Structures are given as C-alpha cells and as structure tokens.
C-alpha cells in the first residue's frame, strides 16, 4: 500500500517534470536549441494567471485561457525582438539568449513593487482537494497535471508527426538553408515555435502553481526537467513524459527507502547512469553522419 502510494506521488511529480520537459523537447525539435528560459516562462505564465485571477478577479477559465494566449503572444514577441535578429547563428548563441531572457524575466518580476518579491497562491477551484480510493490518496491538483500532460503530449506528437507545419519546423531546424530554398517561412515558423513553447510553459506554470505557489524563482524546477528530457531522449516527446515519470518515481522511492540526500540527486544519478548505458536516452535515435 505504502509502495503504491509512493508510486502514485512519484507519477504525479514525474508528470510535472515531464510537462516542463515537453517544453524543452518542443523547442529542441523545432529549433535545435535548448531553452534555459522555459522555467522562467513558466513563472511568467503563473504570474499572468495570478494577475488575472487575483488582481483583476477574472473567472478561472477565462483567466487560464487568457494567460495562455498572453504568454503565446509574449513568446512570439520575444522571438521577434531578440531571437529573430540572430536567427541562423550557431544554436549556442540562442541558448545564451534564453539564459539572458530568464534573468530578465526573473528580474523584472522581482522589480514589481510589493508583488515580485512575494510568494502567492493561485486560487484554482480544485485547490487542496483530494480523492480517496481505498487507502490511497489522490491529489486532485496532481491528477489534473497528469491528465493535461497526457493530452498535451499527444497533441504535440501529432503536430510533429503528421502536420505539414510540424514537419516544416523540424526541417528548418535540421537545415535552415534548405528550408529557405523550399520556401518554408522559417522566421514565421520560428516565431510560432517560441509562441507555442511559451504557451506550453504557461500551461505548466498554471498547473504547477497550486502545488509550488507562485513566486519569482519557481522556474528553477526546470533544472529537474532537463534530466527528464535526457533520460527519455532529447527530441522525443513521449520520451520526455517517460523520462519525467522515471525520475519522479525514482525520487519518490529513493526518498522513502534510501538514505538521506539520495532523493535530491537521484535525478542526476539516473541521468548519469542513463548516459553511460544508453547515451541517447530511451527513445532518442542514435545519429551518425553519413559521409
């Protein structure tokens, strides 16, 4: 029973990692860069939802949808302003940019007087509810995370596998020059990718907020999502979820059964082991250049 309960909470936590990892993978698949700002976008999304719900008093659903839309717009705007000018430069420049964007986002939020330095509660309707099933406890907040994560993963997977735009995004990331030659509007797609990523981040932020509260540093949980993405195989959407689950469950079990401190580095140990055994992760393809 104990074990089942632990696994349940592991899965719930794992879904959170997976959800954030989805954002990383999304960006990676479509632009071959790693966004260190994903966690901070998540934070912005949560603050956005908070502003709408608490300060403007909008109804829950309206606030959630508007926050997601606003973040998508923000993502596109940010792309337009800072990423597009250096589109085509080595991916690493863009990684640096995302670090910079993360700093700015965190800094600006902190600068809002009276709000930025505080911790807030996001008033979701399902706050603190639990379901009991036999002797097990299900946290509604976590159930919501699990469900939304599954849906989102499916949708993104379909986008990249079947839709023309999704394939074009991957094409542009693999060979930008060729994408231009094909008439793919690389810039516009890039904007869409960052918008989408910001929207996913906003969803993650809103889902996470009831569990972790809303504060300027909530994005740091993103650091745990990196291992999740790597374990699953960076570039694989289902991999992100599976990786997240593995890490969530390992953490949960390690916290209970293993000595102190193991839980905190369990994620990193898992990722190191994984890189030794299967360097490309569970679902990552092993790539070699053909010469």
């Amino acid at each position, binding site marked *: 029973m104990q074990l089942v309960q632990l696994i349940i909470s592991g899965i719930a936590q794992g879904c959170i990692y997976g959800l954030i990892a989805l954002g990383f993978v999304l960006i990676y698949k479509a632009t071959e860069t790693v966004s260190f700002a994903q966690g901070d976008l998540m934070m912005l999304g949560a603050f956005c939802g908070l502003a709408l719900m608490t300060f403007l008093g909008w109804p829950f659903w309206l606030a959630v949808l508007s926050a997601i839309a606003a973040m998508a717009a923000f993502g596109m705007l940010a792309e337009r302003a800072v990423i597009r000018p250096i589109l085509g430069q080595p991916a690493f420049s863009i990684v640096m940019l995302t670090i910079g964007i993360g700093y700015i986002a965190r800094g600006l939020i902190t600068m809002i007087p009276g709000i930025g330095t505080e911790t807030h509660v996001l008033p979701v309707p399902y706050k603190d509810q639990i379901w009991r099933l036999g002797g097990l406890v299900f946290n509604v907040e976590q159930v919501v995370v699990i469900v939304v994560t599954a849906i989102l993963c499916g949708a993104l997977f379909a986008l990249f596998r079947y839709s*023309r735009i999704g*394939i074009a995004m991957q*094409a542009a990331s*693999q060979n930008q*020059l060729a994408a*231009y*030659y*094909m008439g793919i509007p690389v*810039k516009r797609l890039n904007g869409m990718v960052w918008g989408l990523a910001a929207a996913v981040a906003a969803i993650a932020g809103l889902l996470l907020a009831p569990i972790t509260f809303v504060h300027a540093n909530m994005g740091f949980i993103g650091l745990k999502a990196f291992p999740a993405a790597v374990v699953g195989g960076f570039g694989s959407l289902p991999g992100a979820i599976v990786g997240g689950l593995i890490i969530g469950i390992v953490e949960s079990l390690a916290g209970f059964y293993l000595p102190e401190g193991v839980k905190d580095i369990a994620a990193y140990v898992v990722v190191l082991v994984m890189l030794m055994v299967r360097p490309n992760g569970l679902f990552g393809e092993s*790539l070699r250049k053909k010469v």
Partner: protein
Amino acid sequence: MSQGAEEILVLSNVESAYGPIKAIRGVSLKVRQGEIATVLGSNGAGKSTILKTISGIIDPNRGSIHFRGENITAKDPADVVRRGLSHVPEGREVFPLLSVHDNLLMGAYTRSDRDAVARDIEAAMTYFPILRERERQDAGLLSGGQQQMLAIARALVASPQMILLDEPSLGLSPKLTKEIFEIVVRINRERGTTILLVEQNANMALNVADYGYVLENGRIVMEDRCAVLREKEDVKEFYLGMKEEGVRGERRWKKKKTWR
C-alpha cells in the same frame, strides 16, 4: 526559341559580397520565359553566388533583380519561392533527419493543393525510382548521388515557374547525368518551366541550353546563344577541354613557387 519572348528574370548590375570579399561585380543577365539559360565559369567565378543572390540567400550590395516584372531584390528566400522560383542548391542540402517522403513534402511546402502535390510526388518518384524504394528512410543516410536526386526531385514537386539548378549532375553516374538532363529538357518542354542552369559539365550544359553566359572573376565576359558559344575557340579551349596537345603539356609545368 521565340526571339521576342518575355523576360522572366532580369538581373541588372548586381554586386554581391561575402564580408569584404566581392564575389560578383556588376552582373547583368536576362532569362526569357520558357528558355534554358546557362552560366559557365571556372571555380570560384561566382556562379553559385549569382543563384544565391537571386533566391535571396544573400543580399546584393548593389543592383536589382526582377522576376516576372516584380522586384525581388533582397527579398526573403521564402517569399521568392512563393513567387514561383525554385532553387536546387549546390551540395544537395537535404533535410538529413526527415524521411525521403517528408523531404519531398517540404519541397511542395508552398503549395496548398494536397492532391496535386501527392500526384507530383508520385511523378518525381517515377523519375527516380530509388526514392520510392527509400521513401521511409532518413534522407541523411542516402548515398551522395541519391541525395542529389532527392534535391532535384524536391524542386520538381514545387512545380515552379522557374528553376535555378546549381550543378545538378554533381556526383551522378554518367547514365544518370544524361537522364537528369533529359528530365531537365523534358520539364522545360512539357511544363514550359524556365531554367537557369549552372554546370561544370559545360558540354552538357551548352547542349541543352538555349542561351549562355560566361562568368570570370565575378564578371560576365561573354554571352550568346549556345549554338554560337559552342563554336568559340575560347569556350572550346577552357570549358569544353578541347585543346591542342601542346597547350596541355605546358599547363603541367605552369606551377611555380610563388613564395610569399
């Protein structure tokens, strides 16, 4: 070739540079609707640069480019393609991690008619049966020549008004090289697609093309109908490799130490 045909592509006095290095200097050329034009030139003369400038991959410093009467100077490449100008780049440039099929699909990105695209993909695969065989394989794993076929097929499915071909025969077997040119001619005749061809195999190029330009050091030094160019001594010597023995023997010893 109809003499008074409308000019579909006009470059006037185009100058492009890579940083401080000028690659082409004041190039003016015209391609008429429905013809095959070719640009000859030795290595580094700037042939690829002309094509890249036309399709907007690099922005010219000076001069203008008009396609079907519209100014496309320094336009976004995607925009240029949308207007019906496809470019088969030098060096294949396939999407290595997409399947062959998806590569072709991307070739037709600018088209919205799904059924017609599917038909054209079928047609392209008929030109190059190997592509059908490898439909689900990642393009990066194809052999060099197979990738070249894919690159050409990709331009065909775009069903453009005009194709810029940069060394289409690169790395193809003699048989396929010939086939490729047959295809080029066929497309030109059957669909009326205008073609601007850059090719090292000058013999082939001068045979299939109507009009030719000779480029040296970024400048156009000669232009005429191909039938005329084929007969010029210079062209014969430098581009068709028809030299007298003496000249060739001399070339062998031309190398001397240029100590810096």
